[in-house]
Every structure is written in C-alpha cells, then in structure tokens.
C-alpha cells in the first residue's frame, strides 16, 4: 500500500521521511518540498501529478539519488541514500534504479544494442552475458529486430522502448519515469504505458512515474498529487 502519512510500514520498499528541499535563487528562498512523507511497497505503480514547478521532478531526482535533500531521509530497500557519498550513490544507482526520461536520452552515436548495454558495462558480466541480457531486454520491449539501429533511425516510441530496455536491463529495484509519454503521440504513448503496466503486473517492477497526462496516470495503482511541496492522494486532490 502506498502511504503518505509518515507512519511506519514494515513492507516499504521506498520510504521518505520529512523530506525538504529548498532552493535559493538570488535572495529568494523557494521551498519546493516541505516535510514530505511517502511509503511505497514493492511492485506498486505510483503516478505523481501536479502543476509545473510543484516539485515532481525534484522528488524524482531525490528518489533516484541525483540530488540531495535539504533535510529528511530517503530509504530504498533498506539503503538510506541521503547521506551516501557521490561514489557510493553512483554505484547504488547502477544497481537499484532504472531511469526513463521524457526525451529518451539515448546516446546518438550508439546503436540500440549499445545503448542498452551501457549500464551493464558497470557490472562484472562477460561480453557474452551482457549480450544475452541486452537481447532479453530488447526482446521484452519488442525491438529485437532493431538492435543495430541508431536512435535517429527509430521512431519516438521505439526510442522510448530502447530507453525502457536500458532501464530494466540491470533488473533494478525500481523504475523512475519522468514524463515517459510526454514527447509521444497518443498511439505510441499507449504502447509505452502498456509496456510499463506489463512490467509492473508480469514482472513485479516497482514504478514511480511523474506525468502531466491523466491517461498515463490512470494506469498507475495510486495517483499522488504534489501541491505546494506536499503530497496528497488523488481523491483529496480532486476535492481540493
């Protein structure tokens, strides 16, 4: 069960406690996240919605260890990441987090295969093992026949599938998706959402997704809204 009340839950995969993030621009102080609490169990699909500037991406960055909070803690699968060194955080990300971006963020000079192989270069897998993992991941996203294609030779939807393959190839603890359908047409967006749903339901992946798209949010088990730096559940948000 997803919870935002801050009470202890023994089964939490992701646990956020009293998370604050303050930005200072010039003389101005912006409280992006204020005392935020969140518990997510393994295998859940959570969507975060909210207006621009509400802190969705900041929250995702903090969950993925890309940024550090002003105060509070983020614990994932028992690892408290907020106080990890940069080096430990990098290897933690490599093992536990799969990132999916709105603009796919594939490396243009690498083929689909090589893009998916990138995170595996950080592991001790042999070349043959890496090949096997990459082929499995690309088959799962339906692109086994596009391995040698460069990003420029793929459609937006296909590029995002390669990005998803790259995110899941190391079998991470959870997936963080930042507007994964934001740059796609409706049909391609549906296909990507089908794929994410499949990853959750058939492969037990925990997915945390930031989106503006209500149709995308519908696919999640729980929709949380960020409002003035705090999380509120879907119904409460609708009421307010």
């Amino acid at each position, binding site marked *: 069960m997803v919870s935002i009340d801050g009470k202890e839950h023994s089964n939490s995969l992701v646990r956020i406690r009293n998370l604050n993030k303050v930005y200072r621009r010039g003389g101005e102080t912006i409280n992006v996240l204020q005392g935020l609490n969140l518990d997510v169990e393994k295998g859940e699909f959570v969507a975060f919605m909210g207006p621009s500037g509400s802190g969705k991406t900041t929250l995702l960055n903090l969950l993925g260890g890309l940024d550090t909070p002003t105060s509070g803690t983020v614990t994932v699968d028992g690892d408290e990441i907020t106080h990890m060194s940069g080096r430990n955080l990098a290897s933690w990300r*490599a093992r536990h987090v799969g990132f999916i971006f709105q603009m796919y963020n594939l490396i243009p000079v690498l083929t689909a295969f090589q893009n998916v192989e990138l995170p595996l270069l950080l592991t001790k897998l042999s070349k043959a093992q890496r090949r096997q993992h990459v082929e499995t991941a690309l088959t799962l996203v339906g692109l086994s026949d596009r391995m040698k294609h460069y990003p420029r030779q793929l459609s937006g939807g296909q590029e995002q599938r390669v990005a998803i393959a790259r995110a899941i190839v190391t079998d991470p603890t959870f997936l963080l998706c930042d507007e994964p359908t934001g740059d796609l047409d409706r049909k391609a967006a549906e296909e990507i959402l089908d794929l994410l749903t499949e990853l959750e339901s058939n492969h037990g992946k925990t997915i945390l997704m930031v989106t503006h798209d209500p149709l995308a949010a519908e696919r999640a088990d729980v929709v949380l809204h960020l409002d003035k730096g705090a999380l509120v559940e879907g119904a409460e948000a609708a009421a307010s």
Partner: protein
Amino acid sequence: MKYLPFIFRNLFRKKTRTILTIGSIAVAIFLFGLLVTIETALNAGVDVAGVDRLIVRNKTSLIMPLPLSYQERLRQIDNVAEATFASWFGAIYQEPKNFFPQFAIDTDTYRAVFPEFEVSDAEWSSFLADQEGAVVGKLTAERFGWKIGDRIPLQGTIWTGTWEFNIRAIYEGSRSGDDESQFWFHWKFLEESRSFGKGTVGWYTVKIDDSDQAVTVTRTIDERFSNSAYETSTETEQAFAAGFAKQIGNIKMLIMSIGAVVLFTLLLVTGNTMAMAVRERVPELGVLKTLGFGDRTVLFLVLAESLIIATVGGAVGVGLAKLFTLGGDPTGGMLPVFYLSTKEMLLGLGIAIFVGLAAGSIPALTAMNLRIVDALRRV
C-alpha cells in the same frame, strides 16, 4: 577495454574535427621530429667527440696550416699517446651541391686515433697499398652509389685540377652518432701532387692516455709552440666540435623556442577540441552519471578520448618524421648525421601524450564535476 567501443564511437561522432585535430598533432610532432633531427645533426660532433682527444690547430685560424714537424714534437709531450693529422681538401664531386668532407690523412696513425670508424683489415690494407686509394663513409658511398674499386674524380678548389681516387674501403661508425660521410685519402698523395703548402698539415688530433690530464696537456702543447711562427690553439675535441656548432648560432635555443611555440599551439588546439566535445555532450554525460557511471569513470572516458587523439597524432607525426629522416640528409651533405633515434621518437610520442593529458584534463575535470541535475536540464 570494455569502454573502448564507446570511446571510439564518441571520437568519431565529429569525424572531420577528430581527423583535423589528429592531423594538427601529427604535423606538430613531425615538425618536432625534424627539429630534433637537425639539432642532433648539428651537435653530432659534440655528442660523439672523444674527451681523450685534443684538437691542435693554428692559433690564427683553423684554415691556417701547421708544420708537419709538430707531429714528433707533440708525441714527446707527457700523456700524449699518439698524434695524427689531417688536411682539409674541399674538392667538388660533379656539382658544388654534392658536398661531403674530404680529408688528406696520415695513414700511419689515423685509424689508431679514431677507432670508432670501423674498416675491415683487408680493405684497410688495400687502401694502404694504393697511393690513390680512398676510404669513404657508408653514408656518402650510399649517397653516390659508390662501390669498392670505383674511380672517383674530384674537382679541386684549393689545389685545382682533377684529382682521381680509387675507392678501396668503406668505413662505418660504431656508434649511432658517428659521421659516416667523410672521405679520406693519403696525405702523402696530396703532398706529392700539390703545388703549394708543402710540409704542412691542417690540424693535429692528439690522443691522450689520461683524460683527466686534458687541461694540463692542452696548456703544455700551446706553451711548447708559443712564440713560434705557428702558434697553436689546443682544445678538447668536444670543445672544438661545440665551438664549430656555435658558429651557426644557438641552434638549440632556436629549436627549443620553436618547439615550445608548437607545443603551446598544440595544447590550445587539442584543448579546444576536447572542450567542444564535452560542451556538446553535457546532457549525455548527465545521462551516463544517472545510469551509475561514477565521476572518475566519466573523467577517464573524456581523458581517454583526448589521449587517443594525441597518441594517434603523435604516432603518425613521429612515423612521418622517421620516414623523412630515412630518406637521408636533405641538404646534400651539410647534415651528415641525419637520423631520428628511438629515444627521440619516444620523446615525441611522450610530448604528444603529455599534450593529450594536459589538454584533456580541464574538460575531463569539468565533466567529472558536472552535477547531474544541471546536466539533464540542458536536454
């Protein structure tokens, strides 16, 4: 090793730029190779000159002669093991541009004083037996395609007329810097045939048995011949060679200055390329870091690119310079010892690698210190 394909892909994302950068490094290192070769050539005499040999010349000028009688008097001085002599001949072979040094030598003593010039006993005997015989260095023999037995006509400039010699021996230097361009013939042949200057020699080379006594022997020789019609100026062969090299200016300083400018330019060119490469790729570097690539790995990836560019450019430059020097002295005899040693080739490559490291270090550090959230914001 597993990162190599990724590094190479990045290197060739802007093929033209990479190739041009490699080309500029290659040209610079090629230039460096040539400068070093010229510097080596100009100082070749200094590098290989013996510390146990003294040059005794006329105090007035090197072109003024000394009497033949000095040979015996030199031999009588303490610590002098042997005294040999030679005279500059200065003739032309076919055309003035075909320069090579020709010496009329004292055949009885010359070989003993210059053991580094190796001639087989059979060839040397053949040379001694022929009054018109000559010994030629390997370099000059190869340059003109001379073989043993060939008859070579030289056009005299000091002692005019056509002088003909029979090639009886070809010598080789035992050390890499030895001058293999010389042409020796019998001083007695010159003495008998010339119309003036009889009974004189160009200079003496004195071999001493204790190099620590060089200063004392030098002073003794010059004192022995002071207040005579032919006063002497004696110095070690090394000092003599260095003085000779200095006559054409401070080449080393000139070469060092050019080298420094080339190196600095190279640093700017490579540094600019790497800075552009990193600037263009900031979002991608952010993605790599997001995927779990550590700061040091990112630093390594950028530095490796810079190093590969520099190393390939350096290797091409050094290779071209070596090929050029293999073609031999391009000046037609002014730089007889014209070669690029392995040590200097490694130095050229080392400079290229240093440039790669130095030029890549700032962009690599920028990439290393890049904050992921800032980098991703530039997508």
